[in-house]
């Protein structure tokens, strides 16, 4: 039984999607090479170039966050697969402004190997590229450096993009990006599997009535299986885990993202958000920014994640800095 998708040939899904993205957003986006998406406005001499990327299937992550004030370019991989070095290099070469390149992407073995190869290739062109990995998925390891990067990307990239847009030097942009990552915490649950366009087979079994806690955004198994709980219980489990790690003082500001993994609709996200808001208020935390919607998806997977970024003055200002991307705007 094949899953139901509106595609043509699964092998061409990513390229056809890119054709659609370029056609729909000609004011925002252009191509450096077939898998290197570049912002029309934003890249400029003297500015650190922020290049993000990763596998497809997480839209609007990554390509939707390319634009003035956020990322200068994105390298686009196959579904759930890191892009190879070439489009990463193409992206970096197209947008670098002589002030260095910052690569940002989720911490996955494949992405690390491909971006590192790209970094070596750029060195041969005398272009300095640094890397800040995102590692916000608190369910994926007790050790932050081993964690996966998931929906927290939105906030972390946003902050780094703002720092670059303000013409800060590479050291500073990298410091801020790492700082933003260190203060960002995400955890999610999956209520259904998704399927790759090439195989159209569910990528794991999840019996009705169960959920996977700590699910990765590629369908990687999480911490454990458990019975599907009411939304408030799910929100509580996630918020408990995040608050315990974050250890923010009373009165601190936070940014919140309640994110759909794909097919979980806004109604459910806002039900979750209602509980999250209650819990944050009870913990004396102030919500500076709230995003609710599909920001980092796993195609048609059902489920949701909650991200909290523990703000300080610097992060709050950078979050508020305007950006204008095809699929995300601030200010």
């Amino acid at each position: 039984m094949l899953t139901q998708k509106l595609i043509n040939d699964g092998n061409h899904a990513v390229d056809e999607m890119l054709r659609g993205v370029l056609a729909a957003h000609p004011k925002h986006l252009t191509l450096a090479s077939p898998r290197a998406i570049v912002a029309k406005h934003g890249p400029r001499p003297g500015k650190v170039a922020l290049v993000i990327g990763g596998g497809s299937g997480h839209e609007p992550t990554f390509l939707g966050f390319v634009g003035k004030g956020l990322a200068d370019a994105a390298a686009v991989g196959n579904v759930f697969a890191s892009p190879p070095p070439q489009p990463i290099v193409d992206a970096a070469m197209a947008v670098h402004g002589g002030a260095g390149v910052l690569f940002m992407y989720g911490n996955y073995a494949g992405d690390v190997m491909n971006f590192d190869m790209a970094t070596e290739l750029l060195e041969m062109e005398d272009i300095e590229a640094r890397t800040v990995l995102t590692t916000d998925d608190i369910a994926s390891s007790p050790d932050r450096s081993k964690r996966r990067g998931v929906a927290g990307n939105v906030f972390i990239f946003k902050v780094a993009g703002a720092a670059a847009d303000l013409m800060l030097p590479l050291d500073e942009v990298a410091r801020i990006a790492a700082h933003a990552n260190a203060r960002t915490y995400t955890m999610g649950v999956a209520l259904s599997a998704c399927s790759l366009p090439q195989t159209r087979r569910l990528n794991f079994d999840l019996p009705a009535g169960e959920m996977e806690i700590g699910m990765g955004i590629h369908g990687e198994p999480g911490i454990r299986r458990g019975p599907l709980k009411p939304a408030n219980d799910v929100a509580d489990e996630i918020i408990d885990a995040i608050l315990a790690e974050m250890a923010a003082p009373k009165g601190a500001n936070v940014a919140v993202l309640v994110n759909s993994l794909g097919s979980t609709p806004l109604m459910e996200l806002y039900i979750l958000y209602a509980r999250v808001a209650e819990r944050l208020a009870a913990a004396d935390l102030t919500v500076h920014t709230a995003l609710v919607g599909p920001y980092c998806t796993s195609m048609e997977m059902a489920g949701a994640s909650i991200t909290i970024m523990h703000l300080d003055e610097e992060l709050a200002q950078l979050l508020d800095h305007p950006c204008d991307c095809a699929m995300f705007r601030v200010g």
Partner: protein
Amino acid sequence: MDFTTQDLTDLFANLAGRMAAERDALCALDGLIGDADHGIAMEQGMQAAAAAVPNLATLQDQFNAAAKAFLNAVGASSGPLYATAFMRAAKTAGPRAAMPGAETPDLITAMAEGIAHRGKAEPGQKTMIDAWHPASEAAKSGATWPEILRAAQSGADATAQMQASLGRAARLGERSLGHKDPGAVSACMIIEEFAKVLS
């Protein structure tokens, strides 16, 4: 018997066919502990490699072309790992139109070293290294192709009992136990195709 550029062209065609046939099985394996795409990566990579190797003058050119084609078609984890493997194989094969059959086990050693260099994996971490490393050790000790293959296979089988500490499955902890590593399984298929052509 010599191993020629024509043999290598045939071998890559076989690898492409084999991976196409095993695609869904490898994806299902990857679905248990990873992201269910390993079969797709291997199919696309080997297909691109197979298309890149015909009509090149030397084995070295062929392996280098395969490396580039595989990498650009795939990315992912498999892309850099097999691209590096093929580049090392290219060096070992050298700028020759053929190499003596007796030297071909060195290709396995070279590939294993490339994968280890790129991925920094140690045996026991539940990755493709757990197939490539024992195969390479066997090759170094002068084993026959059937012995090399058996070494790879028992290495791959053993991954079912390992807890992953590298790659996507590393976050699973104990839940990775009981399932073979898909990269180790596809590694055996590759080595099996080498063995078929070379033994």
